C-alpha cells in the first residue's frame, strides 16, 4: 500500500462514535465472518439484540459490559491502496486524556455530534484538543439523524439549525472541515464519510520534508562511529545540516534504510543530540500548554526527541529545565513541538506538553537572557500601578520584584539609612539579574534614587536592562500618598533629591498623563523595541 493514514474518531460520550466506526469497517469491506459473529453475539448479550456495529469495536470486558469506550482502541482497515489507522477515542469526560493522546498522533479527525443533543461541553473540549495538536482536517458527522425523523423523513430543519451552530463555533478555529449528516444504524451517509477520508489522505504529502534527526545512540563498528537515529518525515539530505545544541555545521555521509547514520566529521555526538536543516529552537525555558493526565509532582522530567531533562521549575504556562531541549513551536513543526512529562519516581507518564515558543522573548537564539524592567521614581509616583499594568501585557507573565514586598522578607534587616538603602537596592538588583540570567523577564519597582547606583545596575545586568523613570513631582506624590509614607518622619530622607541619570530608557510623566496614556506609552516603547 502507498500510504498510512491515521485519524481519530472523537466526540461526546454516546454520540455514536463506535457505531460509526463499525459501519465504516463494514462499508470498506474489512470485517471478517468470525468478527461479525462475535459482534452479533455481543449485541444479543449486552445490547438490544439487533446487530449493532458498535460491538465490532469495544475490546475490554468492562467496556462491553458498560457499553462505553474507556481507552483508545487501534483499528486498521485497508481501502483505496491505503492503510487507515483509526484511533477510536473515549468520549466520556473522565477519559479526555485518552482522547488527547490519540489526537497527538493523528493526521485528521472525525468528530461526531448527536443531532438530538447538539454541541456539548465535551464536543468543544475535543475541538480544542484537535486544534492544540494542529489537526487540520476535520470531518464532522451529525449522527443518529434517523432518530429525529418526522413522518419517516429526516428533520432537515433541525440538521440545518445544528449545521449553522457548528459553523459559527468553527469560525474561531482554523480547521479545513466538512459537515455530514449520517445514520450509522441505517448506513446512510457513511460512504460520504469514507470518501472524505480518502480525500483527506490524498492531501497528505509524502514528499513533505522536516529535516530533523534525533540521535538515539552512538555505536561503534570496526573503529567507526555510526548512529541510531529517529526522524518523522522525509529528509532532504542535500540540505546543509547543523548539529544542536552546539549549533555547528555537520556533513551527513550516509543514512541507511534502517536508520543508521554516518557523518563525515570526526565528532563526539551522543544520545540527545539533534541534527537539523532549518530552524530549531534550543532553550531551557519553554512556554507550554500541558494536558495533565494526573497531578504535577515535585520531581518531573520531560522527554522530547531523544532528550530526557529534569524540570527545575514548573509554572502554569512555562517551565525551566536543567538542560535545553531542541524543539520547534508546535505551529511550525507539529512533530517536533511537544513532549511527554514523566514522574521521576513512578516513571508514569503524567502529562503531554505542547510547546508554544512563538514569543520574541524566548526565541531561536538559545539561552537568551530575560529583560529587567526597572521602575524607578519617588514613592507614590505610580511605579507599582504601572508595573502591574505592564505585567499583564506579556503572554508569558514576568516576575514582579516589588521593593516594598522584599523589605518584608529578604531585606527586613535593613533600615532607611543611606547605607541600608543602597544595600536594599543592590540586593534587589542581584536577584533580578539572577532571574534574568535564567531567561525570565523581571519587573522591578524600587525608588532607587541614586543615579550612580542605577548606572552600576545597568552595567551589571547589561543590554537587557530597561529603566523606566516614573516622573511625578514631590507635591503630587504627597497628594496621592496612599501609603502615608510622606507623613512618616523616618523616611524623610528618601523623598528628597531624586537624581535623574543617563541610565534611563523611558520617562513616564505621571504629573500630566493618566494611567491609560502612560500604559500606552510604555507599550509603544516595548513594541518599537521588539520587546513584546
Amino acid at each position, binding site marked *: 500500500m*502507498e500510504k*498510512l493514514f491515521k485519524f481519530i474518531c472523537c466526540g461526546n460520550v454516546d454520540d455514536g462514535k463506535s457505531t460509526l466506526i463499525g459501519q465504516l469497517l463494514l462499508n470498506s469491506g474489512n470485517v471478517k465472518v468470525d468478527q461479525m459473529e462475535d459482534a452479533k453475539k455481543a449485541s444479543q448479550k449486552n445490547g438490544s439484540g439487533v446487530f449493532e456495529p458498535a460491538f465490532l469495536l469495544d475490546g475490554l470486558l468492562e467496556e462491553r459490559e458498560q457499553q462505553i469506550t474507556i481507552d483508545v482502541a*487501534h483499528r486498521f482497515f485497508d481501502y483505496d491502496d491505503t492503510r487507515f489507522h483509526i484511533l477510536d477515542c473515549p468520549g466520556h469526560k473522565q477519559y479526555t486524556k485518552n482522547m488527547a493522546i490519540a489526537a497527538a498522533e493523528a493526521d485528521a479527525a472525525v468528530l461526531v455530534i448527536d443531532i438530538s443533543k447538539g454541541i456539548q461541553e465535551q464536543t468543544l473540549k475535543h475541538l480544542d484538543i484537535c486544534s492544540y495538536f494542529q489537526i487540520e482536517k476535520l470531518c464532522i458527522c451529525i449522527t443518529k439523524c434517523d432518530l429525529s425523523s418526522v413522518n419517516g423523513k429526516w428533520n432537515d430543519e433541525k440538521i440545518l439549525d445544528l449545521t449553522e451552530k457548528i459553523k459559527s463555533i468553527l469560525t474561531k478555529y482554523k480547521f479545513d472541515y466538512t459537515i455530514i449528516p449520517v445514520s450509522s444504524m441505517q448506513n446512510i451517509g457513511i460512504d460520504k464519510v469514507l470518501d472524505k477520508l480518502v480525500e483527506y489522505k490524498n492531501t497528505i504529502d509524502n514528499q513533505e520534508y522536516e529535516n530533523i534527526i534525533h540521535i538515539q545512540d552512538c555505536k561503534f563498528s570496526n573503529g567507526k562511529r555510526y548512529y541510531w537515529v529517529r526522524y518523522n518525515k522525509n529528509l532532504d539530505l542535500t540540505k546543509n545540516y547543523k548539529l544542536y545544541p552546539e549549533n555547528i555545521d555537520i556533513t551527513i555521509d550516509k543514512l541507511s534504510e*534502517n*536508520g543508521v547514520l554516518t557523518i563525515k566529521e570526526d565528532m563526539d555526538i551522543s544520545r540527545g543530540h539533534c541534527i537539523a536543516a532549518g530552524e530549531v529552537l534550543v532553550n531551557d525555558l519553554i512556554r507550554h500548554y500541558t494536558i495533565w493526565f494526573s497531578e504535577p509532582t515535585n520531581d518531573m522530567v520531560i522527554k522530547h526527541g531523544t532528550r*530526557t531533562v529534569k524540570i527545575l521549575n514548573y509554572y502554569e504556562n512555562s517551565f525551566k529545565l536543567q538542560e535545553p531541549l531542541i524543539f520547534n513551536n508546535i505551529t511550525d513543526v507539529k512533530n517536533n513541538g511537544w513532549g511527554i512529562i514523566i514522574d521521576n*519516581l513512578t*516513571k508514569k*507518564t503524567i502529562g503531554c506538553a505542547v510547546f508554544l515558543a512563538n514569543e520574541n522573548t524566548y526565541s531561536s537564539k538559545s539561552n537568551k537572557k530575560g529583560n529587567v524592567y526597572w521602575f524607578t521614581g519617588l514613592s507614590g509616583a505610580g511605579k507599582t500601578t504601572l508595573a502591574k499594568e505592564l505585567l499583564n501585557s506579556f503572554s508569558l507573565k514576568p516576575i514582579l520584584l516589588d521593593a516594598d514586598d522584599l523589605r518584608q522578607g529578604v531585606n527586613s534587616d535593613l533600615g532607611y539609612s543611606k547605607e541600608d538603602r543602597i544595600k536594599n537596592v543592590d540586593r534587589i538588583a542581584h536577584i533580578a539579574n539572577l532571574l534574568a540570567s535564567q531567561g525570565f523577564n523581571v519587573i522591578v519597582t524600587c525608588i532607587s534614587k541614586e543615579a550612580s547606583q542605577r548606572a552600576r545596575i545597568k552595567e551589571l545586568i547589561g543590554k537587557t536592562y530597561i529603566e523606566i523613570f516614573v516622573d511625578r513631582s514631590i507635591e503630587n506624590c504627597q497628594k496621592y500618598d496612599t501609603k502615608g509614607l510622606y507623613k512618616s518622619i523616618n523616611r524623610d530622607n528618601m523623598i528628597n533629591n531624586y537624581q535623574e541619570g543617563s541610565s534611563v530608557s523611558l520617562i513616564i510623566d505621571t504629573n500630566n498623563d493618566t494611567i491609560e496614556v502612560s500604559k500606552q506609552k510604555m507599550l509603544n516603547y516595548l513594541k518599537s523595541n521588539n520587546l513584546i
Partner: protein
Amino acid sequence: MLCNHLKQLQKQSIELIREVCATNNYNDMVVFYSIGKDSSVLLDLFKKAFYPQSIPIKFLHIDTGWKFKEMYEFRDKIAKEIDLLVYKNPANLNPYTDGRRYTDVMKTEALKQALQKYKFRIAFGGGRRDEEKSRAKERMVSIRDEYNRWSPRSQNPEIPPLYNTFLSDKTNLRIFPLSNWTELDIWRYIKSENIDVVPLYFAKERNVIKTQPGMYIMSYDKIGETKKVRFRTLGCYPLTGAVESDAQNVDDIISELEKAQYTERITRVIDYDTDGSMEIKKKEGYF
C-alpha cells in the same frame, strides 16, 4: 522492494526497539520467541536494528513440550544464530487432561517463572493489535506490575514516536514492536525480506484429525486422514487448528489471505475459549 506503508511500519518498529535498548540495560531485556511467523519477523527487525553488530539480547522460548515437531526443528536451526534460552515449567501438564489449567500453568505461569529466574524486566513480544480485541487496547510499551500483570486502567498514555521506556522499582515492561502490523503485513514483509518460517505454514498433505467442519488438528499417530492443509498460527499442536489450503508458498498465502473470510484467531484455542479470555490472561501476566 518494500511498499511504502511497510517501510513506515518497519521504521516505527526499529525505532521502538532501539529506543528501549538505548535507555535500558541489555541484561534486563529478553525477546520472547514463539517460533511462529511473528517471531520470525521480530527476529529480522532485531537483526536490522543492530546491524552491523550482532544482537546483544537474549531470546527466550517458553516450551510446553507439546509444540509441533517441525517447530522444534526450526527452533534448533535458529538457535545457532541467536542466544536462545529455553524454559519449560517442571509441572509438565497435559493439554488433553488438564484443560484450561494447561495453558495457565505451562504458558502464563512458565513465562512468569522464566522472567523471574533470569531477572528479566523488559520483554519484547510479537503481539499485534489486529489479533484480538484486548490487544487493540494495549500500548506498544506496556507497563506490567512487579508480578507482570496488566491493568488496562492504569496504562501509560502513549503518543508515538515518544515512548516512555523507563523502568521504576515496581514495574516491568512488555514491548510490542509489531503492534500496528496486520497478518497480511507480516506475510508481505516475509516475502519482500525473504524471511525463513516454519514449513507448517505452507499447505502439504498431512495426517490430520477433523475436529469441526473445515478445521483439523495434526496427528502424529497412525489415526487420522490425509488432507492438504496448512496452519495459519502455530502453538501447541493439540490446541492449534489447520485449515484446508492450496497455498504452497508465500505468494499463495498472500493471495489466500486477501480473500480470507475468517481471521486467524479461529485457529487458536487459547483466544477462543471464552469471551475476553485473552484480556483475563493478560491481567494474569500472559503476553
